[in-house]
Each structure stands twice: as structure tokens, then as C-alpha cells.
């Protein structure tokens, strides 16, 4: 299951990491190096006995009680106008190459 430069390009794209072409080979080599140590897992047989059914999670009461912000959004947002966060224009929902 060797990682190829195309794999790294694909994965970097999914993760929105701008990786210069000249750094690609290093990441390919390092990922292959790391993943070679993972192969040992494929040889493991057998599964742990099913853990007893957990109690599950505690839920929150449906109450309007947000954790307050000690600093206004405008002061930490990189770009804000009229209360909106601003990003470069997307013509439609499709432009980011993803859909909700």
C-alpha cells in the first residue's frame, strides 16, 4: 500500500494544505516510512471481546445558555462587516468544491 505523490496531492487537497511540489517527495517518503511500521497491524487476528454496553452520554437540557464570549467577535475575526464573517466570494455553494 505504498503512498504515491498523487496520493499526497489528493490528501493535501482534501485537507486544504498548500504543499509546494518540491516538498512533495519528502512527504511521500516520510508517509511511506511511517506507514511501513503500521503493516504489523494487518497481521493481528482476533478481536477484543465486546465491551459491555456503555452508559452512554449525558445530555444537555434544552436551555438557551451559551458560554459567553469575553472578547467581541469583531475583535478576533480576520474580516468582519455588519456582523458577518467575510471570505473571498463564492458564486454558489459549489465553488468550494464541496457541498454541505
Amino acid at each position: 500500500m505504498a503512498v504515491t505523490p498523487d496520493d499526497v496531492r489528493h490528501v493535501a487537497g482534501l485537507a486544504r494544505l498548500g504543499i509546494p511540489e518540491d516538498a512533495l517527495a519528502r512527504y511521500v517518503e516520510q508517509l511511506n516510512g511511517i506507514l511501513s511500521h503500521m503493516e504489523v497491524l494487518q497481521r493481528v487476528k482476533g478481536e477484543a471481546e465486546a465491551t459491555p454496553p456503555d452508559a452512554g452520554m449525558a445530555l444537555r437540557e434544552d436551555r438557551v445558555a451559551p458560554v459567553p464570549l469575553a472578547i467581541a467577535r469583531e475583535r478576533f475575526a480576520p474580516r468582519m462587516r455588519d456582523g458577518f464573517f467575510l471570505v473571498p466570494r463564492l458564486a454558489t455553494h459549489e465553488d468550494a468544491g464541496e457541498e454541505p
Partner: protein
Amino acid sequence: MTVPLLDQGAASIAAAVREARVAAVEVFGAAHGRLLESHAGPDGIHAVLSTAEPPTVAPTSGPLAGVPVAIKDNIATLTLPTSCGSRILEHWVSPYEATAARKLREAGASLIGKTNMDEFAMGSSTENSAYGPSRNPHDRTRAPGGSSGGSAAAVAAGIAPIALGSETGGSVRQPAAFCGVVGVKPTYGRVSRFGLVAFASSLDGIGVFGRTVDDAALATEIVSGHDPHDATSAAVEPAAMRIGPGTLDGLVIGVPREYFPDSLDPSVRERCDRAREALRAQGATLRDVSLPHTDLAIPVYYIIAPAECSANLARFDGVRYGMRIEGDGIRAMYEATRAAGFGAEVTRRILLGTYVLSAGYYDAYYRKAQQVRELIRSDFDAVFASGVQALFTPTTPTPAFALGAISDPYEMYLSDIFTVTANLAGVPAMSVPIGRVGGLPVGGQILARHFDETTMFRVAYALEEALGAEAAR
């Protein structure tokens, strides 16, 4: 010569402040002096990234009244930046406070500074900090360990008797061992993660450093407890931790053979043997046990942790806060921001995590790793079900390594080989100084069952009692 108040332990400092024998501001001043001294010069320890102003409203009550504490830079505080050792959060001041930080504040502690760390807690040496590495106070050419290296070094340098760190795979215990201090990783769910910037949520936890076992126990008790803001925080009874030294009569301590491989540094093995003798002398029965899946822990960890991190770090996108590099369109903005904001190790782990989760690889890597994680967890269940109440191991395979000595990522990962298992299983674990080798501290690790911090501390107090003087030498 009398011991300076700052070195008398957190409880003594707090008592002196409460009884008005000393003002909190004076204690803070002393701590601040130590900070400046230890950070001076080209080989300053660089443990602290941002330094607090003296408290304006000096605390006069609380179990930590006036006690200076240092907090790792990935735990949200209201007054100092929480940069996580990353460019992408440079100057970021959190608009809300982590539960653990609030508990320390409410106990009367004075925040002295936020401490250096590997970027987003990814690393074992602090060399992955965007703001430069910290240095080990015992030998400034060596790493303090990581990722909570700044907190460990701050406590070792006597700046603060207590510090908060965080663990994902040993990031408190390993630097505690390297810096000769006590490092505690409580049971997963014991301490709220609310406000701890996530690396790998199923493994992350806030941990505590102390100069002494007693300081560590005191601080761990304070930051523990159920938090309605963290769905993984456990609604369990508090465990007594600050129980003081006592005998180990009737206690069965397991010594897992997988943690003493042939490759173990002989001097570390020798210190561990002496620690075992000390435990026996205190009344404990030592038993040879096996945790057969231990050798799979690092591969499992380096699939699960990067997978979770790839999602946890997706929020750093330049839209709402943090660094933003403009680009031609949204995608270019994302890629430029994240390329400039993240360092090499973080980038590597996001790539790795994205890869193991991506279509076609999920079953072979992520699902398999989860299955093997269950096996590792069941190893602990089995050994604890066999009548063993605690385990003793070395914390790390070697003492502190030199800065720059390890360049291969996987070799660096192996320095967590004895610590990641506790994170994978969720059990409590801590490191206690058990001696020195060539002036460098060596840590011994104690593990216990889920939520049985009481037994863990019982062993820790006994070890400290027996070996403390030697370890501090």
C-alpha cells in the same frame, strides 16, 4: 540555610498566603525572578512563551492561594495568549476559559505564564514549537521532552511548584521523566477537556506537573471533576489523591515484561530495579505480568491520533479567527493560510490522518487500529482483573536526549513507547523521579485501574519517600 518559600511546596505557600505571612504578590515576584533568571541568555530554558502581570487582586484564600502556576499554551486562559505553539494561533487570546484553568484560578492560584510546547502538542521534545525549543534545566543542551516540555521545565527550574500540561500519548509523563519532576495523567474523563485545544480527542487529557507527589496530588484533585461542558467527562465520585505517604502492605504491583525489553537503556533498567526493591521494601508484592499487545501501541496510536487531528485542526481555516493569508478565492485562502500556519510535523500528521481515513484505506488502517486499541485496552482489563492493583514500568526508554539528536519522525515517536498505552486504554498513569544517570533524571511510571488514582498516588508517595532524596540529588 532555610529553603525559600517558593521551594517549600504549594500547600506551604498557600498556607503562608492565607495566614498573611506573605503576600501573593511577593510570591509572584519571587517566581517571576526565577523565570527571568532561567530564561536569560542564549541557553535560557525558554519554558514560558508569555508572562503574566502580577495579580492585581491578590488571592488570600483557597487551597492554592497565591501559588504560582504555569499553564501549557494549549489550555484556554482569559488573560494570556493560547497559541498552542503554532503560528496559526499567534497572539490568539481565548474569549473563554478552560474549566481546568478556571478551577486553578478559583483555588487562588496565580498564573505566571503560558508554557512552550510542540505545535498543537505534536511532538516529544518541544522542538516542534513554532517559537523555538525549550531546554532541559538539568542540561541545557538536551530536550525537556514534550509536548508539555515548557511546563515540565518551568517546574524543574523552580518557577512554579505546579503546572498544567496535556497528554495525548505521554506528553506529561515523558517530559516529567526528562526534567525530574512528577507528571500525572489522570483517567480519561477525570479532568474536563473543555478549553483544551484538541489534538486527538479520544486520547487527549489535561495533566499536572508537580515538584513533589504532594503538589501534583493537590493540583490534580483541584482540576478533577465532572464538567457539563465536556460530554466525555465522567460523572464519578472524586478520588482521594492527596493521601500522604504510607506503607504498601497488601498491595500487588505488576511489572509488565514488555516494558523491559532487551533494548532498554541499562542505566534506566538499573534505576527501575532499585525502584522495584524500594516498592518491595515498603510492603508491596511485585508480580511479573504481561500486556501482550504493547508492541502494537505505537502503530495504533499513530493511526488514531493523526486521524482525529486531521479533523480537529480543520477549524483553523482563517475564516473566524487566527491567521489568515489571503488568496485568489476561498480554496487558495485555505491552502495559503494552513500552509503558512502549520509546521512540518503538524502538516505530516494531518496528511497521515487524512490518508488513513480516506476512501479505500479506512478499513485497513483506522478500523483496524480501533480493533487493536480494544485489544490493548483488554490487556489492562485482564491484568487488573488478575489481582494486580497497579503497574510499575520505566516512563521512557532513555533519559533526556540532546536537542536535534532525533530527526527521523518515527524514531521520535518511539520515545513514547511506554506511555501511549495508558492513553489508548484511558487508565491513569504518572511518572515519578526514581534517580539519576549522569546527572539526568530517570522517571518511573505507575499505572492503575480506571478512576483508581488513589492507588496510583499511594504507590507514588511510597516511591518518593524511598527514592526522593536520591532522585533530587
